């Protein structure tokens, strides 16, 4: 596995979605994913479309009675990208900690650590 940033997974909401889908379940239902990630319906819909277009997430739509049900699954490509991205994140944390204790203290406050990956938003 190569540690490298992935622009599709980099935004925190998409990292949450992919991280939750990678946790071991075969399929996760829309409401379960929304509640676990703590995001709104519209945010999940929008971000899942981006991940689906990137080939990271597979979407299955169905209905129980009149209620629509949407299920998500992480694809093999998505899992590989997530693992590489998480490894990169760990490396970044270690690099930031090693480079400057002051920088680490500031980054905890959310003021430093420059953005290195462009978001495809």
């Amino acid at each position, binding site marked *: 596995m190569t540690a490298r940033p992935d622009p599709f997974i*980099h935004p925190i909401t998409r990292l*949450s979605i992919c991280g939750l889908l*990678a946790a071991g*379940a075969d399929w*996760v*239902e829309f409401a379960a994913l929304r509640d676990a990630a703590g995001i709104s319906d519209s945010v999940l819909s929008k971000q899942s479309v981006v991940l689906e277009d990137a080939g990271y997430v597979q979407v299955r739509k169905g209905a129980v009675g009149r209620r629509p049900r949407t299920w998500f699954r992480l694809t093999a490509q998505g899992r590989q990208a997530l693992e590489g991205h998480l490894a990169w994140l*760990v490396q970044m944390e270690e690099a930031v900690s090693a480079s400057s204790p002051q920088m680490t203290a500031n980054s905890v406050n959310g003021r430093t650590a420059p953005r290195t990956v462009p978001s495809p938003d």
Partner: protein
Amino acid sequence: MRDVVRDPAALERLRVQRGRLADRMRPPWWYLTGSAILWAVLFAGPFILQYLLHGVPTWPSLVLTAAMLCLLRLMPWGLARATGIAVRLRNLRYRLGLSALIAMIVVFFAASQTETILIRHGLLAAAIVVAALAVAAQVALLQARLRGIRQELRDGGGAA
């Protein structure tokens, strides 16, 4: 949109979110009840073969088998609907639940064989006790397996 590198708590937040997802993976009462019924019918097999099938038409046992197969198919579907998480219980990905799955298989064969031997020796009461204990053990092992799956979901399935 917020950036992960600017938020050192992102990985910690992901762990909390996984915990929330794992907490949903709790079986409803009917799932455990249905499992107990299924196992009870399975462990009644040696009794049915020994005492009930002599001179009885085949169709009631076929109807019973069909009903059990439908229940077997419907239960994981119902569990996925209730929890919002679809997992295949025979999925070997869940390492923590694997020991419980192996134990379930061992208990099934051991109890079935013990029942058959006891029935052949005319020890009907002892065979019934073995069947009852085996059903209780299987339900307990199913709960242990689900606990393992919950733990696996909480840990992130090795993804992070």
